[in-house]
């Protein structure tokens, strides 16, 4: 061992030494490192090196010193050879074996295959010695996955070890269970794990809970009957077990909020006790009482209180307390504060808490720590959904973050800007985004930011000119990363223009588009998607305003086809564009002179390997040969937005057929009546929904029906729904149920379980729309108030003044200008609503306003009316088309009912389900009568089994309903709001350009 080995040891750097106290130990130690002598290193290798031999030590060191990857690989490969040889020798002492296995793990961590040793690791877990067994378990959890062939050899041992008297053996087995048990083997260990929930050692209980949680993640149905155990463990004597139980509960609540509303009181009282330092001192951490438990609880409360006024009201006091008590000087204190802000912004808004949250945010943003700034920006992004005016207080801090060299912070800030974009600042924000997009190489993030730019531009574009320019920039810099839909959308916009009223503006828009594209074509390397747009626009509108001659445009198109000769799609677009230009020329009665380069291009395409290109080329030839009248009806000028009426029955041929039959031709036999070619025709027909029942079927088989379900008489269904508890849910699998204590009940409960499943799924949905209705109150303000605007402006200027006076020297005029452009404008936040007058239009428009390819298809094969959706899918046509047809009163009903309004407004298709829901909901809301136990011990508050279900359930429902207010006007307003808010930014908005369209 020489001095070289120190190279890889800790060396304290001066900056490192300056860091926080908490890590001082680490560095004190690191400093000592320098004093180390070779002799000490030697003793270390032999004594403390955890029984590892010098061989291993040498291996680690030589790998550490390897100068190149190749050298490292060489060392590792020779090590593998050694291990292969050694490990298969007979009678290896256990301790040697243990070392070999550790060496194997190490080798595999370095990225080399160690599979030859897996079986030895498996053998080790059978050993009696705890040390060897644990090493074996460690190795198999690192080596194997749950579907590995060797698992079958392990399951038996795990079963045995779970029953061991030594709790460490049990813990090791539980650890392996988490990693190695898959859906099929869960039943083999489940009974033992359930038993372990009552193990005397808290470490075991904790791990058993986590194992069940893991099972829940892998296969929710396998443990759905055990969910009550999580509730019970919440009252465990050991706070550590209670804290661990919060993990599975968090998942469960995320998936189904409504079944756990009854726990709100319990969670609040636990949080209160934690915050009041009633837990053992051992759980204190940096003078904070059990901060990690507080964080989990706040996360859970945020879920439970989301759009639930009643539940939220229970939380206000405790969250407010935590805001006050939190020590904002420590990292962990800030973590809890941040979680409080998240909670406040998720639950039903409370002005006082919002104020505290805003205070905390400003502390974060003013901090010097990048981490805190990051959290502050993130928190701000959450809070502005509820109170948009808060962003204005922090404008300069936000701009500082935007200009920070730290990429993470920058991205977070862009996320915030994205959330606070409105029509007044869209230009600045999108420009900034595009600049940033150009400066990075990370394709993943580039894609994301490009799509955000597009989205914002579509939503808030101040003018079409600006929109087209912005899109050009996005395409130019990130063209290949942009979704093709965006390109189609852009073409659609250029084609549809300002709509019906203003034709001159339309043609101006198109001319400017053509102009800019001809200019851009000069650039060397353009992305394919962008070229497609360019070709299409040049084809449709290149000669429309008469500024450019046909030969000029066709020349450009030929250049494109030549320059990008390996891109077939672009070539196809170019050919079709050429065809359109020539067709317009012919239709206008001008003589067509094909350019020589165009001729040679056509010759090339006529012999192309691509059938698509060939066909297009032949079509072009054919079109050129036709007379003006025919050409005009095939490719009418500026008609990409016109409806193409397709006569499916081909009735215009009737005369012709009649004539032919009279002359003795065979009449047509419909395909379904023909024999012998059924399979083929059916296959082809599937698109036309005419597939007859015979022939091949391509859809998947249905899942086998549960036999139990068949036995349920319809009458008893209603009665099972009345059974209130989510508690005993019994498994549908028929594994050895004998050892599961809870499965001792009757068949009726099995039936019950099946019903519950469906209900849960339906209700599970709601969690995807948090905060939509929580934002009601504030959005009301912004929607109808000039007064509101004034108020926020004055507040804004005041805060800016104070900020200025403090930081006057540092703030450059550019920054202030930027601030003014980002935040300054009147706080108009309306996003254009989705339920506009144009909502019925898109579906008809989309069919023909897309790329030239399909318009040609329509022309050539008239039967295919239904276009593949991906070409035209600008949004969610299903939503749009179903929305108007629905009875508005149904929606209203949904709104009056507690907690269902979001789903009814957003997801119209589920209205039927919604109308039925309130009674079911009320019944499943099991109440532990916690209100009476509010201040008593958690244990009594929680362990109270849901005996009072029926009563509790109905009362909660009543309260919830009354709190929503019976006032019809209120609910109408809410309906309007929810409709507005319900449009998530990601869904395409049919009214994108409402403003522009006037």
């Amino acid at each position, binding site marked *: 061992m020489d001095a070289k*080995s120190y190279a*890889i*040891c*800790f*060396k*304290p750097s001066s900056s*490192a030494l300056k860091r*926080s106290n*908490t890590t001082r*130990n680490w560095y004190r*130690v*690191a400093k000592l*490192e320098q004093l180390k002598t070779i002799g000490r290193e030697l003793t270390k290798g032999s*004594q403390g090196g955890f*029984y590892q031999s010098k061989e*291993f030590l040498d291996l*680690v060191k030589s790998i*550490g010193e390897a100068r190149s990857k190749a050298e490292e690989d060489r060392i590792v490969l020779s090590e593998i050879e050694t291990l292969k040889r050694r490990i298969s020798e007979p009678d290896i002492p256990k301790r040697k074996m243990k070392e070999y296995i*550790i060496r194997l793990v*190490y080798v595999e*961590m370095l*990225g*080399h295959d160690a599979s030859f040793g897996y079986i030895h690791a498996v053998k080790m877990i059978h050993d009696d*010695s*705890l*040390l060897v067994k*644990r*090493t074996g378990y*460690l190795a198999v959890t690192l080596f*194997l*996955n*749950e579907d590995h062939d060797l698992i079958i050899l392990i399951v038996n041992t795990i079963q045995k070890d779970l029953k061991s008297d*030594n709790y*460490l053996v049990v813990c090791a087995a539980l650890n392996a269970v*988490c*990693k190695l048990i898959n859906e099929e083997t869960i039943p083999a260990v489940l009974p033992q794990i359930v038993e372990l929930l009552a193990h005397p050692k808290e470490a075991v209980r*904790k791990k058993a809970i*986590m194992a069940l*949680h*893991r099972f829940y993640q892998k296969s929710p149905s396998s443990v759905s009957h055990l969910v009550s155990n999580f509730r019970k463990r919440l009252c465990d004597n050991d706070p*550590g077990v209670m804290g661990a139980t919060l993990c599975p509960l968090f*998942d469960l609540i995320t998936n189904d909020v409504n079944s756990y509303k009854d726990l709100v009181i319990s969670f609040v009282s636990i949080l209160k006790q934690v915050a009041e330092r009633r837990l053992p001192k*051992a*759980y204190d951490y940096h003078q904070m009482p059990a*901060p*990690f438990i507080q964080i989990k609880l706040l996360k859970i409360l945020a879920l439970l209180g989301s759009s639930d006024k009643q539940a939220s009201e229970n939380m206000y006091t405790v969250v407010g307390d935590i805001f006050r008590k939190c020590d904002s000087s420590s*990292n*962990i204190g800030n*973590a809890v504060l*941040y*979680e409080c802000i998240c909670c406040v912004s998720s639950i039903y808004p409370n002005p006082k808490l919002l104020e505290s949250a805003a205070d905390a945010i400003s502390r974060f943003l003013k901090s010097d720590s*990048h*981490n805190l*700034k990051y*959290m502050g920006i993130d928190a701000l992004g959450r809070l502005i959904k509820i109170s948009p005016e808060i962003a204005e207080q922090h404008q300069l801090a936000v701009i500082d973050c935007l200009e920070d*060299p*730290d990429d*993470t912070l920058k991205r977070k800030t862009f996320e915030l800007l994205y959330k606070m974009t409105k029509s007044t600042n869209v230009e600045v924000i999108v420009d900034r985004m595009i600049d940033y997009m150009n400066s990075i190489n990370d394709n*993943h*993030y580039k894609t994301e930011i490009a799509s955000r730019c597009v989205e914002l531009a579509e939503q808030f574009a101040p003018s079409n000119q600006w929109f087209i320019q912005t899109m050009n920039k996005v395409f130019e810099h990130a063209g290949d990363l942009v979704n093709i839909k965006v390109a189609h959308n852009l073409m659609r916009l250029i084609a549809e223009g300002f709509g019906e009223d203003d034709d001159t503006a339309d043609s101006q828009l198109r001319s400017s588009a053509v102009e800019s594209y001809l200019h851009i074509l000069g650039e060397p390397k353009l992305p394919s998607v962008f070229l497609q747009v360019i070709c299409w626009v040049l084809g449709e509108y290149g000669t429309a305003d008469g500024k450019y001659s046909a030969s000029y445009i066709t020349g450009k198109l030929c250049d494109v086809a030549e320059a990008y000769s390996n891109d077939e799609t672009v070539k196809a677009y170019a050919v079709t564009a050429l065809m359109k230009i020539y067709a317009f020329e012919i239709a206008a009665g001008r003589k067509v002179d094909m350019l020589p380069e165009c001729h040679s291009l056509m010759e090339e395409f006529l012999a192309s390997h691509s059938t698509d290109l060939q066909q297009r080329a032949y079509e072009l030839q054919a079109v050129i040969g036709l007379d003006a009248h025919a050409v005009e009806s095939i490719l009418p000028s500026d008609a990409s937005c016109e409806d193409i009426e397709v006569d499916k029955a081909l009735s215009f041929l009737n005369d012709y057929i009649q004539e032919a039959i009279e002359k003795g031709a065979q009449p047509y036999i419909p395909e379904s009546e023909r024999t012998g070619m059924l399979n083929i025709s059916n296959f082809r027909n599937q698109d036309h929904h005419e597939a007859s029942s015979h022939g091949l079927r391509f859809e998947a088989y249905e899942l086998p029906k549960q036999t139990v379900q068949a036995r349920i008489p319809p009458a008893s269904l209603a009665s099972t729904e009345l059974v209130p508890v989510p508690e005993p849910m019994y498994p549908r699998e028929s594994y050895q149920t004998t050892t599961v204590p809870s499965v001792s009940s009757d068949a009726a409960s099995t039936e019950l379980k099946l019903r519950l499943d469906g209900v849960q799924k339906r209700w599970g949905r709601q969690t995807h729309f948090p905060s939509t209705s929580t934002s009601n109150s504030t959005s009301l303000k912004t929607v109808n108030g000039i007064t509101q605007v004034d108020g926020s402006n004055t507040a804004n200027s005041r805060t800016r003044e104070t900020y200025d006076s403090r930081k006057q020297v540092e703030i450059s005029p550019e920054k202030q200008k930027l601030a003014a452009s980002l935040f300054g404008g009147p706080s108009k936040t309306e996003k254009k609503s989705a339920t506009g007058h144009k909502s019925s239009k898109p579906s008809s428009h989309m069919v023909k306003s897309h790329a030239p390819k399909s318009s040609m298809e329509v022309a050539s094969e008239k039967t295919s009316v239904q276009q593949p959706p991906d070409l035209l899918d600008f949004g969610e046509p299903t939503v749009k088309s179903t929305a108007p047809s629905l009875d508005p009163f149904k929606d209203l009903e949904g709104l009056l009912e507690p907690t269902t309004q979001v789903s009814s407004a957003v997801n119209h298709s589920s209205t039927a389900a919604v109308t039925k829901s309130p009674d079911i909901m009320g019944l499943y809301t099991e109440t532990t009568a916690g209100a009476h136990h509010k201040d008593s011990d958690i244990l009594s508050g929680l362990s109270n089994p849901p005996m009072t279900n029926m009563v509790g359930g109905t009362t909660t429902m009543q309260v919830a309903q009354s709190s929503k207010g019976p006032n019809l006007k209120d609910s109408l307003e809410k309906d309007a709001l929810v409709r507005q808010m319900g449009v998530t930014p990601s869904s395409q908005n049919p009214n994108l350009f409402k403003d522009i369209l006037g």
Partner: protein
Amino acid sequence: MIKAVMVMNTQGKSRLAKFYEYLSVEKQQELIRGVFSVLCSRAENVSNFIDAESIFGQDSRLVYKHFATLYFVFVFDSSENELAVLDLIQDVLPSVFVETLDKCFQNVCELDIVFNYSKIHTILDEMVFGGQVVETSSSEIMKAVEEISKLEAASNAISLIPKSASGWRSR
């Protein structure tokens, strides 16, 4: 949940890698390389958080801490709190590592992490179980680890522990 825990040195050599969802060896290496390439491009005095979606897919964040020649990295999803995880790395983990290993060696270096591979894993298993943080008190973790070591030693028929290690046990 926590998706992965990694320790690597400033040259990108991985010193410890634990993934809580199974990944093939190749995939693991790819991720480690991906993480390293991001880490080594970070300047000093910037935040400890990185958006890891480009490496680990949707909804993944990464928190790292640079200690001397080592990077400690946790990858997790939105159900964890960044600052809290950072505290785990910069507070709990080092103090446990240092305390545990310190008692043996009076210092910690990169090699120790490799030499004490199974021990470090034991510590991590006490802290993070099945992808969830279950224990955050360093004294509790220490207690558990010590107990394991004690029982391991006792249950082991062949005494693998030389006399010097008993000094560590008794503390």
